[in-house]
């Protein structure tokens, strides 16, 4: 085994060396130009994709060279257990990927830590591991895709895609990567046998493991096919996004409307005695529109939503948030010399959570908003949320006052004190939010003589099946902060419910599985909401699909070679999972050959 491992190492050593050199050169160049530890998330995603693709190509190539029948027999015809052979091959490539991906990042990390004043936190030292595991997951997916039956094996490439959507962060994200790697390794182990195209028949768990990515793949494929319907609506010119005027009273109209128009739509049917005057006021006023945050910076996350840094040109300062010290680390803007650290207030207290610059004036984290005063070179806490609430939108101007949202309420703070002092602001009023912030897509506020009209529009997730009852609510908030509902307007989805919920009725089980995978090891996020329950009609449709799938499985398994328990197991699986399971059944098992299908050999013509 060790010989095979060594030979594989030697075989790809040049590739690894070149990849190492290129990776190091690119990272070094970029590191000279910018602080690689403080890049927005898409930069890390871009590098991650490159590593996954590189690993996948390596897996495809390596196994592709062995997968030809003669080489495969030769490979496996060794006095070694098949799993040891697989372990030697994949182990060697894992080492090579370590050199090509993790080592350059490690070197750049070490450079930044020892030779620059940039911030290198513990979380940054995990980046080499993450990059390596990304590449390894790509490699295993590629290797499995090449080794197993290609009718379904490419479904394995879906698994690394989970990294794009996973909610976990930091070490938890490494856990997600590890789970995917283990799962792909299991798949490769299952397929790594003399007849890799055959589906294991005796081990139901192995069957499920092989079938799972195929079913998920079929699920996504069917879901994607739904877009053909949208294409048709586009061609016909009836798609709500492409129509000259969006459907009235719908989601698209609410999304596109200017704040003024949306508020007018919101109160168009109001019988409030003041409504007529409000209409005039709205038409003349500036409307302040806010969209809530979808993510907050998480302590020790591997990446950044956006850079946690800002510059103070007047004082020649660069301030970078350190997750380790929970303070802003300061260095010279021009000489790049390390200066010190800056916490909150005169006490230089630690920030309670990673803190991110917002606009020209403020910084925020999950719990509070801060202001940096360049003259005193000090951070001041300006607004604080009550315990149990998290930031949904930091301070934004709203006429005389400034506005902040938590996941539960809107807070109005005095604009005068905000401008004239650096003290902690006391909210003038708190307006509770009746809906869920995870469904909130926008808030539109207009000042009245005493108070505000506030419009909450809850449409987030309406086309992804997460929100079933979108609506707009308009509140009248008086000068003392008392609010009353003026109108609540149900909004239509603009697309058929059957279309927007297809990710559910295609397979409620796989949807739950996907949502579970997305939240694997992730801390709960108050800014995200659980999907709303489906309408009964959609549940009936899902049941019908499962029944159809069950019946299809009865028919299909009759034409495939299965043991009795295997056959009824599949029938049951199709009944539970639905159409994607039926698709996987069709892909995994060839149809049983019938005698009359066999073409009789014709005697050669004399």
């Amino acid at each position: 085994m060790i010989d095979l491992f060594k030979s594989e190492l030697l075989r790809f050593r040049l590739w690894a060396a070149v990849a190492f050199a290129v990776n190091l050169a690119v990272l070094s160049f970029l590191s000279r130009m910018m602080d690689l530890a403080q890049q927005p998330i898409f930069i890390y995603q871009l590098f991650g994709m490159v590593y996954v693709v590189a690993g996948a190509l390596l897996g495809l190539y390596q196994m592709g060279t062995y997968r030809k029948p003669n080489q495969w027999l030769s490979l496996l015809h060794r006095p070694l257990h098949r799993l040891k052979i697989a372990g030697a091959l994949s182990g060697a490539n894992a080492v090579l990927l370590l050199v090509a991906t993790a080592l350059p990042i490690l070197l750049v990390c070490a450079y930044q830590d020892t030779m620059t004043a940039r911030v290198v936190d513990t979380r940054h030292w995990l980046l080499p591991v993450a990059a390596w595991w990304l590449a390894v997951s790509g490699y295993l997916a590629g290797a499995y895709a090449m080794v197993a039956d290609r009718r379904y094996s490419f479904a394995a490439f879906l698994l690394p895609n989970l990294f794009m959507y996973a909610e976990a962060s930091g070490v938890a994200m490494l856990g997600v990567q590890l789970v995917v790697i283990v799962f792909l390794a299991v798949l490769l182990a299952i397929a790594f046998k003399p007849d890799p195209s055959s589906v294991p028949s005796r081990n139901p768990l192995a069957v499920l493991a092989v079938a799972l990515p195929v079913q998920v793949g079929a699920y996504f494929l069917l879901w994607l096919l739904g877009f053909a319907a949208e294409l048709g609506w586009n061609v016909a010119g009836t798609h709500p996004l492409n129509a000259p005027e969006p459907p009235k009273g719908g989601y698209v109209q609410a999304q596109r409307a200017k704040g003024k128009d949306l508020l007018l739509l919101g109160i168009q049917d109001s019988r409030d005695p003041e409504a007529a005057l409000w209409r005039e006021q709205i038409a003349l006023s500036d409307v302040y529109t806010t969209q809530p945050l979808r993510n907050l910076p998480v302590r020790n996350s591997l990446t950044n939503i956006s850079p946690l840094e800002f510059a103070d040109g007047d004082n020649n300062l660069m301030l970078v948030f350190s997750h380790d010290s929970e303070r802003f680390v300061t260095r010279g803007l021009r000489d790049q010399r390390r200066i010190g650290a800056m916490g909150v207030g005169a006490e230089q207290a630690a920030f309670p959570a990673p803190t991110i610059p917002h606009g020209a004036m403020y910084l925020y984290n999950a719990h509070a908003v801060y202001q940096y005063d360049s003259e005193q070179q000090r951070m001041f806490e300006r607004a604080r949320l009550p315990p149990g609430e998290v930031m949904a939108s930091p301070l934004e101007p709203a006429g005389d006052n400034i506005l902040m949202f938590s996941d539960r309420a809107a807070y109005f703070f005095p604009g005068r004190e905000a401008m004239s002092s650096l003290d902690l602001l006391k909210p003038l009023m708190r307006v509770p939010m009746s809906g869920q912030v995870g469904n909130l897509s926008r808030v539109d506020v207009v000042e009245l003589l005493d108070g505000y009209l506030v419009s909450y529009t809850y449409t987030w997730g309406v086309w992804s099946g997460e929100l079933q009852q979108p609506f707009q609510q308009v509140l009248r908030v008086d000068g003392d902060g008392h609010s009353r509902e003026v109108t609540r307007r149900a909004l239509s989805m603009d697309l058929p419910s059957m279309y927007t919920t297809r990710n559910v009725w295609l397979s409620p089980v796989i949807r739950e599985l996907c949502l579970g995978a997305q939240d694997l090891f992730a801390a709960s996020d108050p800014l995200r909401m659980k999907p709303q329950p489906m309408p009964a009609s959609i549940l009936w449709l899902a049941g019908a699909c499962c029944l159809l799938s069950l019946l299809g499985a009865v028919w299909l398994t009759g034409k495939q070679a299965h043991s009795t328990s295997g056959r009824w197991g599949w029938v049951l699986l199709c009944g539970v999972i639905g159409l994607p399971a039926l698709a996987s059944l069709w892909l995994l098992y060839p149809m049983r050959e019938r005698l009359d299908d066999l073409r009789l050999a014709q005697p050669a013509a004399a």
Partner: protein
Amino acid sequence: MGPPRRALQEIKMKTFPNLLGALACSVPLWIAMPTRADDAQALRTAIAAERARAPARQYSRTAFEVSRALQSVRLSPDGRQVAYLRQLGQQRSLWVLPTTGGHARQLLPRTEADELYWSRDGRWLFAKARRSLATLAIEGRDGVRIALDNPRGMLRVDPSQPAAVVLRERVRTPSGERWRVVRRDARGQRTPLWEDERYIHDVALDARGRLVALMRFDGDHDALYRVDGNGRLREALRWTTIRDQAGLLAATPEGDLLLDGDVGGNFRRVLRLDRGNVLRTVHADPRGEADLDRVVLDPATQQPAVVSYRSTVATTHGLGAAQAQVAAITRQFPGRDIGITIGNGPGAAWLVSERASTLRDARWHLYDPRSGRLRPILEQEAKGSPPPPETALARKLPFAYRASDGMRVHGFLLLPPGLDTARVPLVALVHGGPINHFRTDYDSIAQLLANRGYAVFQSNFRGSTGLGRDYALSPRGDYGNGRVQQDIVEGVRWLLAQGIGDPQRVGIAGHSFGGYSALLGVTFQPDLFKVGVAGAPPADLGWSMRRLHEFGNQGAGAERSLAVTMRLLGLDLDKPESYAHLRAQSPLANAGKLRRPVLLIAGGEDRTVPIREVIHYAAMLRHLGKDVSLYVEPDGGHSPTEPLPRDAYVYLMEEMLHRHLGGAKPESPSPALHAHLKSALRIVGKGAP
């Protein structure tokens, strides 16, 4: 050698920030007519003179804008150099001109400074910007930059040191804030002088640089304290401030304090407080009607040397040894408003500024006290856009009339030259504040309206400042459709009775409080006022005051209390009944009565009169089907500052008055203005183009 000439240092009176941000009185101007016209005959004589002048052609709107080319012209204490800021486009530079002749020298090609101060030794300049103070050596390249924690952090040049200033610093503490007075020398060396829990308005230093007195805001009044050798405070005086802070001018070697203020009397004047705390008047307006506007000290003796009064007729007087020279200068500028800074030494030049209501941009002269000759300087530097010639501009005619309750009310009148005054439309311009006043100086809007053929009445109704404490406090809270408004209305009717203005073509315009008055006029006096133009108008003054106190940018602060000022004016913010009449008499509550067209102008970011108040009123008028126009400068503050919004303001006013009163047609808007109006004009009134 003869005795050294007194070096005179001009002390600019510190002004209380605009209470309601008056625009109408924001441009410094100076009087052309030294005539006191407190009776009809005197006014008729002046009117006849205006009637006899040649009519003026129409000038472009931009020609009336005061040039910003030359700012902060300052004579060095030794009289050898004049420093000034020069604005070219967006770039401001700092220059020094030798008074002995020769070319000006550029010290800084680019600066953010808006105010210059000379050090006592004349070897350093202090260039103050909004948040910083730069020191500059006149010879060499030395200098430091000192951060100011607020725009009013500069207290004064330290008269006890060769080159130092006294600054006020705000110190944040866990429980609030404290105020520190420090000396900063030209090289940045910092010496703490005092620290206090209260806001320090001003300080006085003795010859050794020790702080001997301070003026402090004590929550509900101002107070003057003497500081003894042990750092203990002894209260010497206390008073309440209406608008302009009292100032500590100097401490004499005998221990007397010189100050300017209206403490212990009606008018603001130069005062001397001796060691026994006996207060004496050093100089007050000889006419007995105006507050002191500016005082210039002799830095050698710390005695007042030149005083000026500018509320009705601009007069400048010399005191003591300067009396004869000042009189000689003013004789050479009959009818002009003269400002004087004196150099220290027998050969030192004096700097003389020349202003008038018909002179758009100030002129500058150097005076040789030995020969008595005057030499104009900075003529090229002062040139911006060409101003209208003085022959085309209207002279400001000061006059007074008896209100129906017998009180003598002041105002100014501008008449279009050469026109029949009985047939011209009349516009009443109301100043903001209301604690503010129209001055004797050039006023761009009034001049433009006069050039367009309107007679312009600028009312310094009771409640205005500059005319004594009693005058300012006389409304006793009657700011609705009451006594103050009556002063304006009666002033208009009095002018009509004198044959000034066509009674069928009278309009009213103003900004801030003036805008409020304009709304009151078209709401309650529609038979008199046919049209109203209201800039940043509070539609309900009671609501505005309350809101300004609670949320506005001029509420309770360390340096003053709006509530205290309001109480002085007869409006107790803690007693709603004291201003309930303002709500009942407000244009908002009486919107249904409006019968005249009205133009509303507002700033989208106004922190004094919030845009929501103007919009609420405009929406109400629209809802009621009234003829209203609304222009909102998107990012504008209480008054427009940028050229395009200023042009829009004036154009809309011109157009509105032309349409409803028949004055000259405004020149067409430029493409840029047209585009701006398209987006900023939120309601277009009936019949508007």
